């Protein structure tokens, strides 16, 4: 998170949680990245006996197939969208078609006559001046429930809402130019942030041999989760059970309790499987509370799942970012001065912060930032919030500066990077990647090859916070038949967390992963954090390891007499409990567990400092081919070098990097939330005009994961999605010899940049 980010000026309908994590050079002043959760007392350091084993590790770091793979490939895995409860109704929200309007009246009479109609709910009371104005297209106005999904849609359509359309702020440019309607947001359309300044800017520009003045920008994209947001709510008296597609079962429980005014202990949230979140499902959206209220009112369970259009409009987006930059560079390639005015929009009242400059921190620099408010859905953290934007803006500038001093982009970066450190390995990765990618074959800016197909290479770097935090409680249970269960109130958002839970316990107990049953995705398993900021693995695994080792200590006590030794002489390895250095004196796991008796062994663990650390570094190279006759860009190769501390599951960790690269490729080339300039409505709220890569658009991707077991677990989900877009844009620049300074890299922009060059 960037230090220009402030709480929203106007409390949004759904309170935004500031993005967790945050990278080096991007963390708020005085707050360590990946530090403890707000206000929680710092836990004492972990007892060294629980620390990660030095090599060899038998399970952790190996390639373990997802335990839930068979459930997912057969369709047996039940997502929130798949939950059906007895007597369940279907809920549906009525939403504003206008970006800003006053709700004058709501008439349910026609809806009530729709077959199957059961109940209705007013969300924006026309009589309440505090809530009767909608601030973006898709804002909730009312809701209905009916016996089938089709009838719920019919009933929602039949609700007659009378609006008084109000002037809306539609474009960032008009807001900045003072041409947009005023009085829309309590503190104006533009909020000026504080100035961040270091060094002596004037002296810096004096020392420069060349200066560059350019404006760079990135666009708004939406999370576009394949499973849209959705909830199934079932009441029993005043107790609520909710199946939620969420990145945080425990935070969803708190949101239900706060939103409904009921005790947290009365809420159980379940999420066994969820179809993608990318930051948009860290908090329960309004649709969750609407679903609960409809269910309470109807007295039967209600399912409320959003459709694709709603998903685009109301469940968050990545804010836009732009910066007008003046930078100076010395003849030998050191950035002497950096002066930036930046802005961006996170929608109707939400901030749009991003780190700038990104990673490279010239001694003399100044940055002022403005948040621009427009009448669209509110931003939510999206995979490495702020970093892809800061990366694009900074890295394009880097290559432009490198060309001014006629330096190779890698040499130029090496000149301007912070010193090498375990969490800042860019120098090594740049050299290694250059060698592996064939950087020496890269031509200077502009492919001299004849013909219309031009090829180029680009490189960009990333950082991210990650790290662990508590509380994250794990329970380990060993029964007399040898079965092992580990329960954690975490969730698997597609990262492979469920498998990691079992792996970490199996490692501690000397078992195979398949011998441990992981139970997650349910608030009944205790408190654990939301899956945001790449913190899940680092937050949960220490507690799991500690719980498993404590359970093992108890087991050793029961087994020791049978082997004629004291418990501390025993180790667990290879599915046996054996006397240290005397493997012949041992019991199989099953034999050992028979001594447990009827009451299973249970033990608990929590996160503690010492087994995790924060911040990662990575470098990505991209090669792209551009057809200058059509403006079409095709990315042919990407090399991603990434560290994440201790690699837990090599197989699924690699998948995270593939996914990050492809997410960033979409950001660079395809996806774009396009608003109608006149009405402020999104013109592509679907998946055919909201473009996403398909199989034919995917480059060869080589992943080099750097395992750093000595750093403990750090986290991986976000960093690999940061630098790809910039690397692709720079590959395009290298190919065509012209610079596109805004994303996405559409054919139109390619042509425009070529024309400007000519």
């Amino acid at each position, binding site marked *: 998170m960037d230090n220009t980010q402030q709480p929203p000026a106007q409390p949004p309908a759904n309170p935004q949680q500031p993005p967790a994590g945050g990278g080096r050079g991007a963390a708020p002043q005085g707050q360590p990245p990946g530090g403890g959760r707000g206000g929680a007392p710092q836990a004492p350091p972990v007892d060294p006996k629980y620390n990660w084993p030095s090599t060899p590790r038998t399970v952790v770091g190996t390639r373990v197939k997802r335990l839930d*793979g068979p459930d997912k490939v057969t369709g047996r895995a039940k997502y929130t969208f798949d939950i059906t409860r007895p007597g369940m109704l279907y809920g549906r929200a009525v939403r504003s078609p206008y970006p800003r309007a006053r709700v004058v009246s709501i008439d349910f009479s026609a809806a009530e006559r729709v077959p199957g109609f059961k109940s209705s709910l007013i969300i924006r009371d026309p009589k309440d001046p505090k809530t009767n104005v909608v601030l973006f297209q898709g804002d909730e106005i009312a809701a209905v429930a009916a016996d089938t999904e*089709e009838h719920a849609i019919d009933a929602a359509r039949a609700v007659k809402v009378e609006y008084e359309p109000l002037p809306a702020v539609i474009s960032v440019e008009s807001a900045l130019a003072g041409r947009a309607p005023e009085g829309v947001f309590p503190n104006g359309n533009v909020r000026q942030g504080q100035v961040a300044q270091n060094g002596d800017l004037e002296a810096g520009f004096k020392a420069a041999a060349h200066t560059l003045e350019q404006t760079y920008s990135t666009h708004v994209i939406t999370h576009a989760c394949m499973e849209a947001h959705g909830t199934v709510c079932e009441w029993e008296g005043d107790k609520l059970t909710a199946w939620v597609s969420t990145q945080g079962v425990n935070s969803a429980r708190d949101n239900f309790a706060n939103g409904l005014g009921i005790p947290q202990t009365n809420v159980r949230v379940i999420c066994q499987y969820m179809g993608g979140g990318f930051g948009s499902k860290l908090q329960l959206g309004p649709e969750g509370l609407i679903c609960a209220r409809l269910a309470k009112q109807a007295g039967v369970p209600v399912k409320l799942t959003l459709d694709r259009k709603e998903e685009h409009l109301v469940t968050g987006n990545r804010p836009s970012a732009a910066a007008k930059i003046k930078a100076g560079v010395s003849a030998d390639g050191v950035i002497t001065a950096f002066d930036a005015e930046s802005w961006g929009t996170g929608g109707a009242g939400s901030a749009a912060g991003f780190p700038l400059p990104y990673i490279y921190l010239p001694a003399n620099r100044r940055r002022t930032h403005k948040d621009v408010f427009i009448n669209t859905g509110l931003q939510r953290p999206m995979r490495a919030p702020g970093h892809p934007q800061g990366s694009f803006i900074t890295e394009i500038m880097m290559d432009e500066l490198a060309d001014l001093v006629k330096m190779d982009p890698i040499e130029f970066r090496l000149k301007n990077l912070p010193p090498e450190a375990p969490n800042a390995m860019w120098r090594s990765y740049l050299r290694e990647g250059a060698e592996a990618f064939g950087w020496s074959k890269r031509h200077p800016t502009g492919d001299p090859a004849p013909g219309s197909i031009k090829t180029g290479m680009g490189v960009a770097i990333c950082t991210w916070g990650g790290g662990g935090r508590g509380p994250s409680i794990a329970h380990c249970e060993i029964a007399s038949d040898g079965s092992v269960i580990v329960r954690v109130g975490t969730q698997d958002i597609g990262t492979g967390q469920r498998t990691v839970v079992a792996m970490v316990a199996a490692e501690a107990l000397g078992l195979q992963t398949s011998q441990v049953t992981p139970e997650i995705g349910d608030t009944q398993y205790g408190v654990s954090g939301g899956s945001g900021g790449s913190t899940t693995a680092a937050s949960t695994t220490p507690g799991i390891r500690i719980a498993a080792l404590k359970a093992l200590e108890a087991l050793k006590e029961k087994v020791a007499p049978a082997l004629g030794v004291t418990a501390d002489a025993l180790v667990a390895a290879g599915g046996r409990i054996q006397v240290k250095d005397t493997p012949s004196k041992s019991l199989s796991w099953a034999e050992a567990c028979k001594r447990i008796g009827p009451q299973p062994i249970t033990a608990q663990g929590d996160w503690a400092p010492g087994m995790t650390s924060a911040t990662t570094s990575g470098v990505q190279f991209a090669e792209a081919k551009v057809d200058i006759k059509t403006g079409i860009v095709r990315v042919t190769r990407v090399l991603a070098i990434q560290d994440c501390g201790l690699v837990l599951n090599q197989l699924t960790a690699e998948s995270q990097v593939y996914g990050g690269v492809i997410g960033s490729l979409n950001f660079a080339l395809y996806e774009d939330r396009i608003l109608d300039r006149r009405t402020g409505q999104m013109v592509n709220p*679907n998946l055919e005009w909201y473009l996403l890569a398909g199989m034919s658009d995917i480059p060869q991707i080589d992943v080099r994961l750097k395992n750093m077991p000595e750093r403990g677990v750090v986290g991986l989900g976000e960093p690999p999605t940061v630098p790809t877009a910039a690397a692709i844009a720079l590959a395009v620049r290298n190919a065509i010899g012209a610079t596109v300074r805004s994303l996405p890299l559409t054919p139109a922009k390619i042509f425009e940049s070529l024309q400007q060059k000519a």
Partner: protein
Amino acid sequence: MPKRKDEPGFSRRSFLKTVGASGVAAGVLGKTPGADAQTVNAVGPDAVRMTLNVNGKSLVLQLEPRVTLLDALRNRTDLTGNKRGCDRGACGACTMIVDGRTVYACSTLAIEVQGKKIRSVDGLASANGQLHPVQQAFCDKDALMCGFCTPGFIMASVGLLEKHPNATPDQIKKGLDGNICRCGTFNRIFEAVSSVKGVRRG
């Protein structure tokens, strides 16, 4: 808010959403027996009896004619394996095989596929639980993350490999271009599908 069409006889709601012309759908279906023209604000014909042959079993369902194959299975039976991602034939999560051809089940009316052989992901593994080679390959290669698009990718892959058992890389790419994975698992899906040999027509 788009004005709602009140005429009975229209069907698929996405036609209304996208095209905004109920006449298109009405032309496809016409009036269905059982439509109650006297219902105030009637929005469609009542449910009718349909028989669907899904995964080798005969399912008798009472469905409104506008109900899609996908919603028929997902909301009226426990066959929730195939998913609804976009509901208009763009993401492929709903992909099923009907009479040997892959279809977007979200854009296929249940009433249209009566008498046809419908295969969803729920019926792909053998009765004893043994995974289809494509399912096994997805597990082995970690060709899935959140898994929501996976059923559609698997059915698209099965459809492709039944037609082209030795599909070339280009055929695999083209054959799976109708499916979207937001987690970004494409490279491994490609690897998984490329590794499967000798798929026979199901």
